[in-house]
């Protein structure tokens, strides 16, 4: 057989192809400029919040306990110079990462099973959604009865709050697999494992990533709630510090810890958004602005 040569309409086709390409996007701005563009609205919001707080403080509302931004940030500064905060932060993050990793495995396995087995999907799908609506704190007494005041209880709370979200992400991802893609895959002879690898996994990835992000947020709630209630002797954690500050009515110190918790939440959320936006832009789906 002769070597395939391009058919005749080459020139016209090449012309059309060029015309149909979207005009070149404006050059990506410098990294510094992009970071500034993304962060100045957030900074502005922060300034407004601080100004409001300062005003409340100046008004003398609950002046015997309420501390202003200045005292709070000075407390935060002090705590940053003591090992206690860092060791507490280390413990909390270790628990968070370990608990999330376990939730990831459990949520993924459950989600994969439920989405593949039809009767299971019909039976348990709504149950998993119902689990998600439970406040994380309800798992604390449950965990203490089962495991006592131990790290296991805290990990249990993280898993019970994060795993349903992760499973749900995977399930909704498979629910919305485009039938046309599955048909195309079948005509290409993709079966079983190859079908999973080439079609089902990549197609469900955005929904799955959404589930992971939500799972982390829920798990983080559960973790801090658990730490405030489940006080384990000899172990510092963000929850324990917060609980101590509560006992001493130290508003500035407590607020400083809350700021630390908030910052970790924001940083992790940004990491998830970074990954999600990458996935979305590769597929031509609009990016979220968060």
């Amino acid at each position: 057989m002769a070597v395939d040569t391009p058919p005749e309409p080459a020139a016209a086709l090449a012309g059309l192809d060029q015309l149909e390409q979207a005009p070149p996007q404006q050059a990506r701005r410098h990294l510094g400029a992009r970071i500034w563009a993304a962060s100045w609205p957030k900074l502005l919001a922060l300034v407004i919040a601080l100004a409001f707080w300062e005003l409340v403080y100046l008004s003398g509302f609950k002046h015997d306990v309420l501390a202003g931004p200045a005292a709070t940030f000075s407390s935060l500064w002090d705590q940053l110079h003591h090992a206690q905060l860092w060791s507490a932060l280390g413990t909390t993050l270790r628990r968070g990462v370990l608990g999330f990793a376990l939730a990831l495995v459990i949520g993924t396995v459950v989600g994969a099973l439920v989405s593949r087995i039809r009767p299971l999907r019909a039976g348990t799908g709504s149950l998993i959604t119902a689990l998600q609506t439970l406040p994380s704190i309800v798992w604390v007494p449950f965990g203490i009865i089962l495991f006592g005041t131990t790290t296991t209880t805290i990990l249990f709370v993280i898993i019970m709050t994060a795993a349903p979200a992760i499973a749900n992400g995977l399930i909704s991802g498979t629910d919305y697999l485009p039938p046309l893609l599955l048909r195309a895959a079948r005509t290409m002879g993709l079966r079983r494992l190859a079908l999973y690898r080439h079609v089902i996994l990549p197609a469900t990835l955005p929904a799955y990533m959404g589930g992971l992000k939500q799972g982390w947020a829920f798990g983080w709630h559960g973790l801090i709630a658990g730490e405030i209630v489940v006080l384990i002797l000899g172990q510092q954690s963000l929850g324990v510090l917060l609980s101590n500050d509560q006992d001493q009515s130290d508003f500035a110190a407590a607020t400083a810890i809350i700021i630390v918790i908030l910052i970790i939440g924001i940083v992790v959320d940004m990491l998830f958004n970074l990954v999600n936006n990458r996935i979305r832009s590769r597929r031509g789906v609009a990016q979220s602005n968060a």
Partner: protein
Amino acid sequence: MTTDPRVDETTATAAIQISDVSKTFGRGDTALLALDRISLSVAPGEFVCLIGASGCGKSTLLNLIAGLDTLTSGEISTGGRRVALMFQESALFPWLTAARNVEVPLQAAGVPRAERRQRVADLLDLVQLSAFADKRPHELSGGMRQRVALARSLAQDADVLLMDEPFGALDAMTRDLLHEVLEGIWRRRHLSIVFVTHEVREAVRLGDRVVLLSSRPGRVIGEFDVEFARPRGMDSPDTVGLAIKIKDRLREEIMRHGR
């Protein structure tokens, strides 16, 4: 033409042999007869266009030939030939580049990596998209996506290409050019093509034969051999003349349902 070792010699006279095929959807009172004893033979290297009004079961028939659905009665044989199916939407995987999309069937068939690279490059060259190998589907126009889909079908090493209104969503200029591309590839690769369309002139432009199907249930009610020379123009007097004849026949069929 080379003989293909995959092809069973006893049935080699026809690339697709459809004998007395019926397809019923559902059961009992609500059962719908979609195809009623269709018989159709497509010769190796033949370009057959299927045309019909809505509800003639064109897509159903393609699904049956592709083995995506089971038939109620009758028999379809492709004599061991490989069959690829193309849709009106490209059905490309949005997370893969054009080149990686074309590579998927090769991966599924276990072709070694180095050979895959080469064949993907050749196929993209064939559909004139070498310059766009690294673009993702959303960065390509509709016509370009259909060319990637065509390359992906060819990567399945198919002898039979089933096309379900593949250019139905394209503008006229792009469609005309893709007719030329498809015709060129069909010739060079000695493909047997079944091309479903609702555009009569497109059928006359491309087909060696135009097969007319009735609606509800789908039956073959007419066959027209297109004998004038290729390449044909969509607007040439020959094309338009035959298209008018086919359209009249089609209109009769549609009016039958209005009574």
